[in-house]
């Protein structure tokens, strides 16, 4: 099976106020295959979001390799990573992170605004229709329910036709009855768009829906009680 995401010997640490550095992640190896939908389980504060930021290129690792669709992202400049992210990676946030100044459809179009591809109104409209918001195009986030906001966020994350979708606790802020439908929506649209999906969650019930489940503690060799000097 072709690997879409390959991580090797990835390490990430953060400076501590009192000096020294806290190592958060030390992952010898981690892969996701093309089209695979994987849930990564981990406790809060375990480094799940940091791993997603590293994969998305929002953070630079201390060392190691992150290869996505055959491209070594660590070798890219910051601008290169930004562009790569815009064209290759979709991101669904725990808190949706819609921009309040923009309507639903404009938020979706923002997902296409920073890449090199065309950012068509029709693509945004199609995605919103697919997530059931065909009558909410011009609503602003504050005019939408929590569930609807998350649907807009899902549509936005797929707008740029990414190869990999990163979902950070996508159901954490929606009510339990909506959580299942949101999750199903993500999985279904990823299947339709042939997008690999990596969802991090601390909820075992959510994780159980996925074909592949990995625990962060299994792939991360860091003992969270240790602190090392840089």
């Amino acid at each position: 099976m072709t690997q879409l995401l390959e991580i090797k010997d990835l390490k990430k640490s953060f400076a501590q106020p009192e000096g020294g550095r806290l190592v958060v992640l030390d992952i010898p190896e981690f892969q996701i295959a093309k089209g695979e939908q994987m849930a990564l389980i981990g406790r809060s504060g375990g480094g799940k979001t940091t791993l997603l930021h590293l994969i998305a290129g929002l953070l630079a690792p201390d060392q190691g390799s992150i290869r996505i669709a055959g491209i070594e992202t660590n070798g890219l400049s910051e601008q290169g990573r930004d562009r790569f992210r815009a064209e290759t990676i979709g991101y669904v946030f725990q808190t949706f992170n819609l921009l309040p100044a923009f309507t639903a459809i404009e938020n979706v179009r923002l997902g296409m605004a920073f890449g090199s591809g065309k950012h068509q109104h029709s693509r945004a409209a199609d995605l919103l229709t697919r997530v059931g918001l065909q009558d909410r195009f011009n609503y602003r986030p504050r005019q939408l329910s929590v569930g609807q906001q998350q649907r807009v966020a899902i549509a936005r994350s797929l707008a740029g036709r990414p190869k990999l979708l990163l979902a950070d606790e996508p159901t954490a802020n929606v009510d339990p009855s909506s959580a299942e439908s949101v999750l199903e929506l993500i999985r279904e649209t990823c299947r339709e768009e042939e997008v690999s999906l990596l969802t991090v969650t601390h909820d075992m019930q959510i994780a159980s829906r996925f074909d592949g489940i990995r625990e962060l503690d299994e792939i991360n060799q860091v003992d969270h009680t240790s602190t090392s000097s840089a």
Partner: protein
Amino acid sequence: MSLIHIAWRNFCHRALSSFLTTFSLALGVGLVVLVLSIYGVISEAFTRNASVGYNLVVGPKGSPLQLTLNSVFYLSQPIENLPYTEYMEFLPKDERAAMVSRFGGDPKLAERDGRYAPYIAGGFAIPLALGDYYGEFRVVGTTPDFFTKLKHGPNVDEDFTFSEGRAFKDFSAEHSYFESVVGSRVAKDMKVKLGDQFFPTHGDPSGHGHELGFTVVGILDPTGTPNDRAAFVNLEGFYLMDGHAKPVEADQQSENDDGNLLDEAIDAEESNEAQPETDPTPNANAAASNGVRLVQTGAGESEVGPDSTAPDTAGKRPNEYRLLSIPEREVTSILIRNGNIMFAPGMQNAINEGIRSQAAAPIGEINKLMNLIVGPLLTALLAITGITCAVAAIGILVSIYNSMNDRRRDIAIMRALGARRTTVTSIIIFESFQVALIGTIAGWLLAHAAIVMYSGQIEDQTGVQVGFFTTSNYEILVLPLVLALALIAALLPAWAAYRTDVGSNLSA
């Protein structure tokens, strides 16, 4: 979705803050545009006023600015008077001979061309006699040439036209020497109609009134020049008013008593011109001997106007007036137009090298005045309004910078969606530019709306016509300057946007 669209959405999202910031900038820009427009109006008014078809003003030695102010703008007090012979120096022999013949004076004056006549061949010299008032307005004694030879307008090619009536004549059967033309402002303020008569006051608006009155025969159309604020009377009638004849004998005595070098030099100059060896007019001779003024001394004493039996305003018939002889005549200043403008500097130098007269170029004097007084005032005003704009620009900075706390998350989201640091920085700068652009346009519109609102009064006061799109040359600089200020104001928040940490703000 373009960055400008994103910036516009941010602008609209913070509608109240954006409006207040933009409005304060609009007020600042409006003030700057108003100051520039006012300067443009003042500048144009001065230039128009100083450009009425003549290129030099000749008057007694003294301040050239004062000469310009009182002869061109009818402001300030006349310096002194010049003998009529000084005016005759600008005339050719035949015109001088006609004057000697008509008014009486030294026959030698008729034997040569005026000293400066060659310089103005093809041009003109128009005498002015000032000193009287009609209400608050200056009475200007001059010749009918004033209305036929002088021009006005932006290109100095428009003739004087009359809303009513006509120019006064040198002599008319109906009103003798006592015809008058009033400027548009005088007619409006003094509620003058054709046929009305006014009696000038001597020396200042509250001075004693002359006995002789002038009949208004013409009202000028507005010209946008100081002539709108003047009452023009026939020079011959002006001379006939009491106190306007130069007391020849007394003047000579005064000069002898004084004895300074200048006067001696003037005496020497005058000895061959002003003092007739044989005065052809008996009454003038008599006047010279007894020193009395010679106006209204009775019919048949000197050459008078055409024979007429029409009574004048003082109850006398025209032939009952004796025109002043040349030695009794004085002019306040002379408006000169050189037939060939190339001769102007040479003539100006020749006059200024003399001991009695000076020649001033009105436009040059006005430019000096603008540079010395109006320019610094404008600079001060511009500095104040510039500070206002700078304060408004600081307002932009404060507004955007304060919003940075709210928008760090937005910036982080955009960065997560693939926006580069330079992209989010550009959005902040575009937002600042939008405030600047809208503020500048709104300020410009406000200022010009105000100008249009007061355009009637501006035209009344200065004669300068201003419309909505009447712009100063400097206004074109306002937008680039405000955009530059906006760019400076945006730098700090843009830098904050550039440095926004994505990870921490996404998780916030």
